[in-house]
Every structure is written in C-alpha cells, then in structure tokens.
C-alpha cells in the first residue's frame, strides 16, 4: 500500500523542528510499523538524505524504546501494543499518518522522534529499589510467604516497561501511571515494605521535580499503556503517599 507520512523532523534539542511530508510505497500489511520506517529510511539514504531518527531495540514489545505518537495516539491505534508490535494492516491504503515524538516538557526531543526519557531513570534512582545485600548470602525468596494475590498484583505492576506512553498520551503529561507501577511492584511485597514510606515520598517528589503534570484521572494512560498497567496502582500510590506524608517518613 501507499502512504503519506507526516513526520516530525528536528535536528537537535535546541533546533526548531517541523512536520515534513514523505510518500512511501510497497508497504505490506504484515510489516510492523518499524519495518515501514526502515523502508522509508533506506529510501532516504539512497537519495542521500538524512534518515529519520527513532528509538528501537528489542522489536518485540519488551524494551519500551519504540516511542512514536502515531495519528494522535501513543503507539498508534492498537491496544496493548508497542509501536514495534503494531502492524501496517491497521492502516488503509492511501492513508495519511502523523508520526510525532512523545511530547512532554520532561521528555525533551534529542533528534526527530527520539526523546530523552532519563527523567524516568531519576524517578527510579530516587527510591525504586530495595536495599539488599547481594554479596552472595541472600536468602531464598520463597522463604518469605507472600499471598498469591499480592504477588500477582506486584507482578502485574512490574510488567511496566518504562516506555513513557502514559506520559505521552496524558493531556497533562503526567507520569503517575509509570511512577505508581514502580512504587507498587515493591510496596506490595514484604521486602519492599521496609522502605515503603520514604520510597513513595521520594519518588513522587522526584516526579514533580522533573516537571510532569498532575493527574486528572482521565484514565487515558491505562488505555494506551502497552502492558495494561491499571489505575489501581495510581490509587494505591495516592493512599501510600498521603499516609506516609501524614505519618512522617520514618
């Protein structure tokens, strides 16, 4: 099929960018969206033009790097998929497709469709870990009994791949879904509860510092999240944060 692509081009973080039109032909429905981008890029290279920069790595929905805002939605029209898992059969022959980078003050554009998501790393560094001694004498995890339901909820939260689609899609560019998943995956487990209060306070403070917006509970993040992370996590984080703030950290 033939497509008209309107793609954001920006030479660098400080440069001014713009939407540029590209025509591609010979796209098959079974191709992934990234394969379609590869075809466009090889055409650009043949013509001696600068290829379009975009992030990608695993191409199987586990690394979270393939950030593209496609036709007004994070990772395009599919549900529970990343851009690399999106197939071209989701589009019609002759369709115009808008392709933009994640837009958020906290995710500055590096080049074209690539954005800097290190704000997420700094949220994790602020508390998204459990302090354990890993010098070889760690206890077997199964020696700590954990209710099945909690283990499942923690595991669900832990499937967050840090892609940033929640931020990209939120009208407020809020990082609540990501942060809450990263809080919940630990706070639901006994090993994580020890540092629970300071974790939630520090991670939320870092999230605010990075310049993400507030949560209006629109629920758009949950719909667009490729891993189906639930709003339950945001409510849980609100509870934990409010009670930790009320009680004082320690």
């Amino acid at each position, binding site marked *: 099929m033939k497509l008209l692509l*309107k793609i*954001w081009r920006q030479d660098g973080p400080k440069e001014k960018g713009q*939407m540029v039109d590209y025509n591609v032909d010979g796209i098959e429905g079974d191709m992934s969206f990234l394969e379609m981008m590869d075809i466009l890029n090889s055409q650009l290279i043949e013509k001696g033009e600068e290829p379009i920069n975009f992030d990608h790595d695993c191409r199987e929905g586990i690394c979270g790097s393939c950030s593209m*805002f496609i*036709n*007004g*939605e994070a990772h395009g*029209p599919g549900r529970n998929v990343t851009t690399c898992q999106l197939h071209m059969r989701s589009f019609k022959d002759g369709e115009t497709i*808008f392709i*933009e980078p994640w*837009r*958020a*003050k*906290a995710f500055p*554009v590096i080049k074209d469709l690539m954005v800097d998501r290190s704000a997420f790393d700094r949220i994790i560094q602020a508390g998204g870990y459990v302090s354990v001694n890993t010098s070889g004498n760690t206890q077997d995890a199964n020696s700590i009994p954990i209710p099945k339901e909690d283990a499942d909820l923690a595991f669900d939260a832990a499937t967050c791949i840090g892609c940033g689609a929640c931020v990209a*899609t939120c*009208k*407020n*560019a*809020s990082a*609540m879904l990501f942060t809450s998943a990263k809080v919940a995956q630990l706070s639901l487990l006994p090993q994580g509860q020890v540092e629970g209060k300071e974790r939630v*306070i*520090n991670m*939320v*403070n870092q*999230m*605010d510092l990075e*310049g*993400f*917006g*507030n*949560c*209006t*509970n*629109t*629920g*758009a993040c949950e*719909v*667009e999240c490729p891993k189906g992370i639930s*709003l*339950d996590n*945001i*409510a*849980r*984080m*609100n*509870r*934990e*944060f*409010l009670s*930790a*703030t009320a009680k*004082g*950290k320690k």
Partner: protein
Amino acid sequence: MASKGLLSSSIARKFAMALSALFLIVFLLQHMSINMLSVLSPDVFNEVSDFMGTNPLVQFVLQPVLIFGVCFHFIVGFILEYKNWTSREVKYAKYKGSANASWMSRNMIISGVVILLFLGLHFYDFWIHEITHKFIEGKDSFIVNGESESGFRFYEELRHKFAGDFPRMILYIVSFIFLALHLNHGFESAWQSMGARSKKYTPIIKKIGVAYSVLVPLGFIFIAAYHYVTQL
C-alpha cells in the same frame, strides 16, 4: 528530602481538591433539596430559607466555610490547569483525546469556568440582594431585631427572578448542564484522588456518581423551568 508542605506535592494538591469538591457535592445536594421545597410548598421553603438565612451557625460558620471552599476549589483548579498546560510545551500536531478518555474528564476546566461564571450571575441574582437587605439595609437581621421577620421574602424574590425572564432561565439551565458534565467525571475522580478505590466499592461509587451528576443538576433545571413556566 523532608516531606514538604500540604500543597507542595501534586498528590497533596489533588487530595485537597478532592476534599473541597466533596464538600461542595454535599452542599449542592442540600441546596437542591431546599430549592425543591419552593416547588412543593412555598411556606416550608420560606421557613427553611429563613432558618438558613438567619441562623448564626449557618451564617457565620458554614457560609464562610462554603465561600472558602468554592474559592479554594477554583483557585487550585486554575493552578493545576496551568501546571498541566505547561507540562507539555510543544503540542501535538494531531492529538486524539477522544480515543482514550471522556470529554468530561478532559475538559474539567471548561465546565469549571462555566460554573464559575454562573456563580457570578447567581451571586448577583440572589446573594448580593440578600446581603444588602440584611446587613446594609439592616432588615430581617437577627443582629438588628433579635428575631427575623422575613415573611415571604425568599419565595417572592425567587418567583420575581424568573418571571418572564426567558434568557435567565436558559442561562441557568445551560450552566446546570455544564455542572452535570463537571460532576460526571468529578464525583468518581475525587475518590480516586484520595486513593479510595477497590474492586468492591469503585463500581458502586461510579454508579452513585452518574446518578448524582444527572439527578442533582436535573433537579435544579426543573426548579428553574418550573418557576419560569408557571408564570407565563
């Protein structure tokens, strides 16, 4: 990092927002119920209005709390909205908000601003007159008389406002529709902001929220329309 003040974190601000909103929700139900009396029985309406208008507890405790609550709510609403707007400096060329969230949830500021404008009109219509009457002209006030003598004043004022005034009735009705839109998302959202969410109660909260957001504004619409239509 020490934990900061009450309104310095995004979650605490939303918690305060939700508290003020829930207070307003309780107030609104009370307000609608009393107004409904004006349809059912002018006498009872006057009696209750007189009580609300002269009781010191209502006048000097609840009323200031209410005014503070409304102001707090819309000021924090504007602050949140500003922060949210500036969190995305470069906007999308194409953004399909309807694909993943309701219009109500995405436009709380629009429905909120309509309510705020309405409050301006509503204060002009009733409250300013009430205050002038009581405190400037010194009538009907327990401060002056020790006892109220307001008689049928409340009901008559209300009837008078809607007598033959089609544009006013329409303004009221349109505002109540926006109130319904605001509450349709707001009711449920307030509980989520406070972290009150569970498999068991959230579906019930959602149902109550939808019922409240439809029935309370509908009640107000009925009252405004009733007083207009019965005076044609």
